[in-house]
C-alpha cells in the first residue's frame, strides 16, 4: 500500500464524516419540508363541510369529500377482507409447512418479486380481469387491486413473524398431543400475535395511500358509494383529479385530502411501530 501523509488521510476522513452528517440532515430537512407544507396548505381546506358534504363543481363553495372518505374506507376494508386471510395462510405455509420444499422456495421468491411489481401494473391486471369483462369501473375491482398489493406484504410479514417463534413452543404443543393445525393456530399464531397485527396494520397503512391501482379500477365518482359495483369515490384519486384541475378551490381541497391521508398513514405507522416496540419489551 502506498504511503500517504497522515494529515491528508485525516482530512479526507473528516470530509466524509461531515458529508455523511450533512446527508442525514438533508434527508430530515426534506421530510420536514414535505410534512410542513402539506400540513400548512392542508389545514386551510379542512372544515366541517370537508368531512360531511359531497363535492361541488368548481367555484361553488361548501363542497366536501365525504363520499371519498367513505369510499376509501370501504375499498380498503374490502382489500383487508380479501388480502389478509390469503396472505396470512400463504405465510403460514412458508413458515410452518414448506420450510424447505421446492414450492415454498418458488413462492418465497415470487412474493419478494411481487412486492416490487409497480402498483399501476396490478391495477392494469385487475382492469383486465374485473373491469374489461363487465364494461365499467367498480369499487370491487379497486378492493381487489389493493388486496393484491397487500397479499405479498402480509405473506412475507407472517413468515418473518412466525419464524421468530421458538421451536420449543411448537414442540410443546405437539407433545401435548395437539394436531399440527391446532398447534399453529392456537400456539404459534398466538405467540406471534403482536407482530402479525403490526405487520397487517402497516400493510393497510401502505395501501391506503395507494393511488395508481385505483385509477383504472375504482376510478372516482362525485356521488355517495351506494354499491361497490359502481365506480367508487376515493381520496387518493380525488387528490389526483383535483390537483390536476385548473381550479383553485379544487386544488385546495386536494391539499386537504393530502393532509388527511398523510396524517392517517403516518399516525398509524408511528403508533403501530411504537406499540410493537413496547410489546416486545
Amino acid at each position, binding site marked *: 500500500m502506498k504511503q500517504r501523509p497522515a494529515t491528508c*488521510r485525516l482530512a479526507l*476522513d473528516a470530509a*466524509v*464524516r461531515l458529508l*455523511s*452528517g450533512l*446527508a442525514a440532515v*438533508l*434527508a430530515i430537512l426534506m*421530510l420536514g*419540508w*414535505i410534512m410542513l*407544507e*402539506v400540513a400548512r396548505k392542508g389545514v386551510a381546506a379542512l372544515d366541517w363541510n370537508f368531512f360531511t358534504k359531497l363535492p361541488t363543481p368548481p367555484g361553488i363553495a361548501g363542497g366536501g369529500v365525504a363520499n371519498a372518505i367513505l369510499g376509501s374506507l370501504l375499498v380498503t376494508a374490502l382489500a383487508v377482507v380479501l388480502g389478509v386471510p390469503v*396472505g396470512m*395462510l*400463504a405465510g403460514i*405455509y412458508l413458515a410452518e409447512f414448506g420450510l424447505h420444499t421446492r*414450492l415454498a422456495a418458488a*413462492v418465497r*421468491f*415470487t*412474493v*419478494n*418479486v*411481487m412486492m*416490487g*411489481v*409497480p402498483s*399501476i*401494473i396490478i391495477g*392494469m*391486471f385487475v*382492469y*383486465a*380481469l374485473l373491469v374489461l369483462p363487465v364494461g365499467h369501473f367498480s369499487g370491487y375491482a379497486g378492493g381487489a387491486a389493493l388486496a393484491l398489493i397487500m*397479499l*405479498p406484504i402480509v*405473506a412475507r410479514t407472517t413468515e418473518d413473524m412466525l419464524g421468530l417463534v421458538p421451536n420449543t413452543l411448537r414442540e410443546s404443543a*405437539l407433545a401435548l*398431543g395437539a*394436531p*399440527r*393445525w391446532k398447534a*399453529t*393456530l392456537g400456539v404459534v399464531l398466538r405467540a406471534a400475535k403482536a407482530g402479525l397485527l403490526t405487520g397487517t396494520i402497516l400493510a393497510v397503512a401502505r395501501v391506503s*395511500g*395507494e*393511488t*395508481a391501482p385505483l*385509477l383504472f379500477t375504482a376510478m372516482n365518482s362525485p356521488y355517495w358509494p351506494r354499491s361497490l359495483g359502481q365506480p367508487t369515490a376515493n381520496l387518493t384519486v380525488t*387528490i*389526483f383529479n383535483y*390537483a390536476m384541475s385548473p381550479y383553485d378551490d379544487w386544488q385546495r381541497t*386536494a*391539499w386537504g385530502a393530502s393532509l388527511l*391521508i*398523510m396524517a392517517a398513514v*403516518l399516525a398509524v405507522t408511528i403508533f403501530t*411501530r411504537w406499540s410493537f416496540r413496547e410489546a416486545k419489551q
Partner: protein
Amino acid sequence: MAKLGKISGGDLVFKTLTGVCAAAVLVIMAGLFYELFRLSWPSIQKFGLSFFTRNEWNPVTQDFGALSSIWGTLVSTAIAMIIAIPLSLVIALFLVELAPPIIAKPVGYAIELLAAIPSIIYGMWGLFVFAPYMAEHVQPFLSERLGFIPLFTGPPIGIGMLSAGIILALMILPFVAAVMRDVFQMVPPMLKESAFGMGSTTWEVTAKVTVRYGIVGLVGASFLGLGRAIGETMAVTFVIGNDHSLSLGLFNPANTIASTLANEFAEASEPMYLSSLVELGLVLLLLTFVVQSLAQLWLRSINKGMGA
C-alpha cells in the same frame, strides 16, 4: 412430524389450505404476465419491434411507438440512482459508524417515515412546492453555470425530467439506505477492529473493509431501489410534465411508462390504443421482474455467505 398418534384430518385440510394460498401467489404472478401479454398481442403484432424504436404516439391515427416513454423511464431512473445511491451510502455509514445511538435512532426513524409517505403526497409537494422552487432557484443557476452541457437546457419551468428524477431519488433513498444499513451491520466487528487497530481512519475502514466485504449486499440494495424507481407512478406523473417528445435537455417536460399509463389508460377506448398501453405495461412488468429477481438472487447469496 407427529409420527406417533393418529394423523388428524384437520391437519391435512389445514396444510392443503395454506398450500393453496401459497400457490395462489404463483398463479397471480403467472396471470399478470398472461393477461398483459394477451391484451397487448394486437399491438405487438401490428408494431413489432418498431414499438420500441419509433417515437410516434398518435391516438388519432392509431399509430404507436413508445420510445419517449421508455427513454423517460430510463433517464429519470438514472437520475434517481445517481443521486440516491451515494446519499444512501453515506447515510447508512452515518447511522452505523458515526452517529452515537442517541442521534442514530431518531435519524433512522425519520428516514423510515420518509418511506411511509404515500407517493401521491410526494406528487402534490413536487408539483406545487418543489417544482416552483426548482424553476426559481435551481434551474436558472444550473443553466447559467452548466448551460453549455446539453443536459442542463430547456425551459426553466420546474416540471420536467430533472425534477422527477430528484423526487424519485428522495423516494427510493429510505429503502436503499435501510438495506445498506443492514449490510453495514452485518460486517463482523473483528474485521473492522483489525483495520482500526492498524491505524486506519473511519473512512478507510469503510472504503477498504466494510464496502468491500458487503459489496454484494450494497449492489442488491441498489437494485431494490432501481426496481422501485422504474415503476414509481404518481409522484412522477405529477411533476414530469407528460410530454411525448424526446429531448436531451433535462429541464424539458417528458414522460415515463408509468406516467403515460396513469394519464391515458382510463381514457383509452380504441382497441389498438388500449393494446399499446398494455404493451407498455408489459415492458414495465418485465423490467421490474428482471431487476427484482436479480436483487433477490443477489441478496440471497449475501445472506448465505454471511450466515445471517
